């Protein structure tokens, strides 16, 4: 971080030094011919350069003819704004990616010899080994620390001095003869109210304060009451105030503190102050109609004569600089005419534009490329210089996402993109600009390549399409061909899985992107599962408008924006919310959407919905498909991070609340109906009473409530008084809840969950022992709801197990009669644990036949949950049993 900032400062410092030296030259050449106001204005360019790192690139920038190793783009989208870098930014960051070492030879030697900026730019060395790099990183760090220390001490002492001054000047006395003030203010057309004070603690006039600047005069000046002198001095100070110099001076001090290591900046700082004073003198002379030069000069000398030392250390206030040259400047002053002023203004604007822009690397690529060829970054006498991109040899070398040992990669003989093709290369994100010579085509998609710098392999990547980079990324490269003319190639780290919603009306911008193979999030190549008769599009098209962002920079907000602007939406793992089916009364989750129907059509597997009145059709593919879950009222769609898991889900996919193989999807007429059926059939319409009720899943209705009579409530409350709070004799996990709970009067703490030991309850986080209450409740539950605690030891002597699963149109049966398998099932069923029921759909039926000929029907969860319901008791069974079911029933648990 620190090194980064230091780097930035260093780069600014160097760029500004060049500007400053140019200005000093101008200033020197025209020293007596130029108004000081002009040179004063010019310094503002240096000031801006020293403070702001980012500038627009322009063809007319001075840096087009001066050596600049690189400019760093700020973001993928804004091609023309950037930072000049003499010192690469990434030397302090860990190499971008595992073994991919980034080496940039442009580590500057200049950090301690700032004066030799320009020379040293030519003395870059390259080809150092990593040891040298480490050394340099260390060096940069130390330099950065020294810099920060210097900055802090300078700032601190400046601030301390300022505070001390202000404190001592508190007792300065208001100067009340304000005729002079009014007169001069009027003359200067200065509207703000300025107050004048005097003090015996200062020797020369100063302006003090940031928000309400005031003029402070030395006592001696006031005492002498030389009105001429006073008027001149007050005019001078008021001009400072009018020009906001009292703000720029401290600012320049801060800037000098930041760039303290740079003597050019110090020299600029001094000249800046001098020009500030002298231009101020010029203004004084200009505002008076008559020639007051000698009067004014005399005033200045009088003032100086009274001082035994010359105040200048009031760093953040005003001092007056260089008395002799000021006198000369004053006496030399000639009023400049309109044309001179106009010309000066024009020159300042031109210089401002030329000096405040960065080199341009767009259309002007050739020149810059050539220029780059001469820059030190690439200079190495023995090696071929410059950056080149080679394809990995072998036409089928597809990118696997694995980071390989760069040196072991065999490259093709000729570079795909030679140094002449490369306009600029950005080390931060490994993006580069190339000339649009059509060398990159869609055939290269997924091909591996290696970036070679000075003969050294520095970076491996693959050509990739923009659309793959929706999930931000580790490594992958996409080809951003969204606009015709820019021909940008982004090398970015990232990948995106296939899957997307296909808009029917899309344009063919990316029509050639094949989706048959792609990367998963981990950068691994996989082939998507392509089921028979299930149409997965060969290509995806994204509509209309140009993409505005480099995808790798997208945060979620931007993604949304992009998706909107592309008029397409993508499914990804983190964004289920977009694909929820939300009933109309509850669609606040995505307000702009009004989902009208969820409709399956015979041939197209998907559904339609309306966004803003525009009907959109979604086709399910293997990534995006509806699944059920805990949400009773939602159908939502799910993809998986892990493809294999997904694959399983696919084969056994189901829709709505009735499971079905997805291949049979066309047989379903409408999901709404399924949802309705499910509710009608599986859940009792009974509503939960507000208080004093018992609840369990009973045989008939799966879910049942019984509201206690008043007499029962009395009895329960009596029994309740016998409760003993358990002193954690047992671990809470040892209690097994049964599918039975009751609630008294109201309030959260009045929920009681019944445990299977017939004497323990959980209420309000506390375990309560009360066998009497337990007996009472279980009695009521049995009498009113038919609930009994089920004893799993009855699962023995099985001769047959049949699993049935029913959809709207047919029932699937599967039978196990193998003795040894039945034995295993028995054992696992006996170990099944009592539990409170989850929200799985329990629409599979397991029919067990015992040796005595009796049958028992058990409801099974038909999603992936290991849950079953026996006589209203809910059990969780083991993964082992789940495996047995899956392996021995056909298509368990779905078919």
């Amino acid at each position, binding site marked *: 971080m620190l090194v980064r900032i230091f780097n930035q400062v260093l780069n600014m410092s160097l760029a500004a030094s060049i500007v400053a030296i140019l200005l000093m030259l101008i200033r020197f050449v025209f020293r007596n011919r130029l108004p000081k106001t002009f040179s004063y204005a010019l310094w503002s360019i240096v000031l801006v350069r020293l403070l702001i790192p980012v500038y627009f690139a322009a063809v007319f920038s001075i840096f087009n003819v001066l050596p600049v190793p690189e400019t760093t783009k700020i973001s993928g989208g804004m091609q023309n704004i950037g930072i000049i870098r003499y010192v690469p930014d990434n030397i302090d960051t860990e190499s971008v990616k595992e073994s991919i070492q980034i080496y940039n030879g442009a580590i500057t030697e200049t950090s301690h010899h700032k004066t030799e900026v320009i020379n040293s730019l030519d003395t870059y060395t390259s080809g150092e080994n990593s040891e040298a790099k480490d050394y340099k990183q260390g060096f940069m760090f130390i330099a950065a620390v020294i810099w920060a220390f210097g900055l802090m001490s300078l700032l601190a002492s400046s601030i301390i001095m300022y505070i001390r001054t202000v404190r*001592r000047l508190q*007792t300065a*006395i208001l100067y009340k003869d304000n005729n002079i003030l009014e007169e001069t203010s009027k003359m200067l057309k200065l509207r703000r109210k300025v107050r004048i004070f005097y*003090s015996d603690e200062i020797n020369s006039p100063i302006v003090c304060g940031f928000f309400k600047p005031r003029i402070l005069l030395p006592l001696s000046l006031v005492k002498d009451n030389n009105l001429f002198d006073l008027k001149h001095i007050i005019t001078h100070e008021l001009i400072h105030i009018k020009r906001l110099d009292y703000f720029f001076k401290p600012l320049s001090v801060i800037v000098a503190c930041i760039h303290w290591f740079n003597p050019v900046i110090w020299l600029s700082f001094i000249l800046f102050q001098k020009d500030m004073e002298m231009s101020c003198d010029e203004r004084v002379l200009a505002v008076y109609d008559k020639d007051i030069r000698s009067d004014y*000069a005399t005033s200045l000398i009088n003032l100086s004569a009274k001082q035994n030392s010359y105040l*200048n*250390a009031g760093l953040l206030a005003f001092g007056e600089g*260089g*008395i002799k040259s000021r006198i000369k400047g004053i006496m030399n002053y000639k009023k400049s005419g309109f044309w001179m002023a106009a010309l000066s203004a024009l020159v300042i604007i031109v210089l401002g534009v030329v000096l405040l822009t960065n080199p341009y690397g767009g259309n002007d690529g050739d020149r810059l490329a050539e220029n780059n060829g001469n820059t030190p970054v690439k200079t190495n006498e023995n090696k071929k210089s410059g950056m080149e991109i080679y394809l990995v040899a072998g036409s089928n070398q597809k990118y696997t996402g694995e980071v390989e040992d760069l040196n072991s990669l065999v490259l093709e003989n000729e570079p795909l993109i030679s140094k002449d093709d490369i306009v600029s290369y950005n080390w931060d994100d490994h993006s580069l600009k190339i000339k649009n010579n059509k060398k990159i085509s869609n055939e290269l998609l997924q091909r591996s390549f290696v970036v070679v710098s000075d003969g050294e392999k520095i970076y491996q990547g693959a050509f990739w399409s923009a659309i793959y980079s929706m999930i931000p990324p580790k490594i992958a490269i996409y080809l951003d061909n969204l606009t015709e003319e820019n021909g940008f190639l982004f090398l970015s780290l990232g990948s995106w899985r296939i899957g997307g919603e296909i808009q029917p009306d899309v344009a063919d911008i990316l029509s050639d992107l094949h989706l048959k193979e792609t990367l998963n999030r981990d950068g691994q190549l996989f082939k998507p599962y392509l089921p028979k008769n299930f149409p997965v599009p060969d290509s995806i098209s994204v509509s209309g408008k140009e993409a505005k962002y480099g995808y790798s920079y997208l945060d979620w907000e931007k993604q949304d924006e992009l998706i909107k602007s592309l008029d397409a939406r993508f499914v990804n793992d983190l964004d289920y919310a977009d694909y929820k089916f939300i009933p109309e009364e509850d669609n606040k989750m995505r307000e702009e959407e009004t989902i009208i129907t969820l409709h399956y059509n015979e041939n197209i597997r998907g559904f339609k919905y309306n966004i803003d009145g525009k009907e959109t059709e979604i086709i399910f593919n293997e990534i995006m498909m509806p699944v059920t879950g805990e949400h009773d009222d939602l159908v939502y769609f799910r993809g998986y991070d892990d493809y294999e898991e997904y694959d399983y889900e696919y084969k056994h996919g189901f829709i709505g609340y009735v499971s079905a193989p997805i291949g049979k999807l066309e047989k379903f007429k409408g999901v709404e109906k399924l949802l309705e059926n499910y509710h009608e059939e599986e859940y009792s319409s009974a509503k939960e009473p507000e208080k004093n009720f018992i609840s369990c899943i009973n045989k008939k209705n799966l879910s049942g409530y019984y509201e206690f009579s008043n007499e029962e409530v009395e009895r329960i409350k009596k029994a309740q008084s016998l409760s003993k709070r358990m002193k954690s004799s047992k671990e809470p996990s040892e209690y097994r809840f049964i599918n039975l709970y009751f609630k008294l009067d109201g309030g959260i703490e009045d929920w009681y969950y019944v445990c299977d030991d017939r004497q323990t309850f959980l209420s309000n986080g506390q375990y309560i022992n009360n066998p009497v209450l337990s007996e009472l409740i279980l009695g009521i539950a049995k009498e009113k709801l038919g609930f009994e605690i089920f004893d799993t030891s009855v699962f023995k002597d099985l001769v047959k197990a049949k699993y049935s699963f029913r959809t709207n149109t047919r029932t699937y049966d599967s039978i196990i009669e193998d003795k040894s398998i039945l034995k295993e099932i028995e054992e696992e069923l006996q170990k099944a644990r009592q539990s409170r029921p989850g929200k799985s759909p329990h629409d599979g039926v397991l029919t067990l036949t015992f040796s005595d000929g009796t049958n028992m029907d058990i409801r099974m969860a038909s999603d992936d949950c290991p849950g079953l319901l026996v006589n209203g008791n809910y059990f969780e069974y083991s993964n082992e049993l789940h495996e047995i079911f899956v392996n021995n029933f056909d298509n368990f648990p779905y078919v």
Partner: protein
Amino acid sequence: MEKVKIFEAEYRFMNIIWDNEPISSTDLVKIVFDELGWKKSTTYTVIRRLCERGAIKNENTIVSTLIDREQVMKAETEEHIDRIYGGSLKLFFSAFLHKEKLSKDEIDELKKIVEEYDGGE
């Protein structure tokens, strides 16, 4: 009669008290603000300082003087602000800032420059 050393700013302040005493400190703050342009906190600081030196007293927020005008010895501030910045820092900065001390000769020389230019026109 013992003399009390008073600096310029304090003398101005004392003048106001002599003219108005006894005066409540609140009123004093108002007058001092109008006359001298001081903030409330500055006025209180000076009151405290002068109390310590035995020039005035402040009892139950009523301020009155303890000395006459004749007892005052007006002192020059010995140390100007620009002398605060001593030590190494001063050296550091003064290397860059023109710290000039004008001798009589130099002043004469400057005056001569002005005259020359004047004569030249």
